[in-house]
């Protein structure tokens, strides 16, 4: 089946089986491997991407369901310079092996874009959908708290 959608601002299309998940389509067909596939059943959050600005698990969505939608992956949230979230993650040492990091950054970006005032409790609640086996989460929460000021100011990343 042909599917066409917008990926990180560019129109893309792919020929996929209906059973292909959005995560596999993005990685294997479209070559953007920043989206990581961990558990493949919706528990770990590593594959989180933004669909029309909302954080969703790309392993729990079929590629064909993304038809005509706007998809943003971790690649779409990074440029030549570190984004505020990336800089804060580096500053706070909010990653070690880095496998889960794309999911945390995409999730945090969606959260702070919609709720720049999210407090520590809210951030922790939202992060409950992402698993990290290295950091113990505390530096991740600190990094997101730190990045908030950038979202409050210009509402973008």
């Amino acid at each position, binding site marked *: *089946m042909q599917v066409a959608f917008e990926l990180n601002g560019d129109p893309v299309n792919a020929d996929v*089986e*209906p*059973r292909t*998940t959005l995560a*596999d389509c993005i990685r294997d067909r479209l070559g953007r491997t920043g989206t990581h596939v961990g558990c*493949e*059943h*919706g528990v770990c*959050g590593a594959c*989180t991407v933004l669909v029309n600005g*909302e*954080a*969703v*698990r790309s*392993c*729990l*969505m*079929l590629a*064909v*369901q993304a*038809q005509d939608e706007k998809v943003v992956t971790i690649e779409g949230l990074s440029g030549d310079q570190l984004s505020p979230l990336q800089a804060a993650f580096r500053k706070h040492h909010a990653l070690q092996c880095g496998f889960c990091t794309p999911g945390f950054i995409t*999730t945090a970006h969606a*959260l702070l874009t919609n709720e720049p005032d999210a407090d520590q409790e809210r951030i922790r*609640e*939202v992060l*409950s*959908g992402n698993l990290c086996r290295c950091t113990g989460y505390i530096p991740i929460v600190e990094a997101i708290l730190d990045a908030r000021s950038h979202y409050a100011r210009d509402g973008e990343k």
Partner: protein
Amino acid sequence: MKPPSFAYASPSTLAEAVNLLASGNGNAKVISGGQSLMPMLAFRLAAPDLLVDLKHLKDLGTITIGDDGVRLGAKVRWCDIENDRRLVRSHPLLAEAIKHVAHYQVRNRGTIGGSLAHADPSAEMPGVALTCDGEMTIVGSGGTRVEKASSFFTGPLQTSLEPDEIVTELHLPAWPATRRWAFREFARRKGDFAMAGVLLFYDLDHRNCAVDAHIGAIGIADCPIRLSAAEAALNGNAVTEDCIAAVAAAAKESIDPPSDIHAPGAYRRALLGTLLARGLQHSIS
């Protein structure tokens, strides 16, 4: 794991969707948010020939609040309920229970219709529907029918839905502003399915005694259940410490929770009693 092969259709009308389901000889399935079905496919616990996506069906995503209560379209998502501030007053038990469903990303896609049809014994939405005398509107080849939650849930992941039927709406009767209520559940991690949960409400009569008690439980049986013995122990009584203890004892006596990898039955029984007592205490504070 990767899902098994299937065909996919995204019809633009309800009638078309029903026809597609009917043509599937029992092997076609609806996909709505996909937040339960996709894991089932990944585990190969489901292997449909055809998935019928509700994505393009209009009018199923609205929340209507009126004198007759709350109507939730089948495609209303967890985040829609969370973001609708009216519900905190119009149906506080619903608003509170839904806070406990899954995680941020799952909440952006998971729908009430999918949860009702999936009928997980621990799921909050079926518990709300049952406890609150909810009614589902269901459309299939045979036309439209309305079914009470009390007969809709028939077992673990089992409902009275025929293969060609689609849930279009859940209706919850009006909620008096003075109603007493509580929701309590216990899960080891935030957003996980509950090991046990309690939903309750009652009204107070002129003597300050509980009437019309509704007490539902999730996670302790094959499907959500009403605890009629506990309701009987509450009805007609002032909600005192003694009464609360009696209601919790009646509840514990009346249930026979299963043991599984998450908890032995005896633990779930004790947990339910504790959650119920705490819920009742909260309802009078």
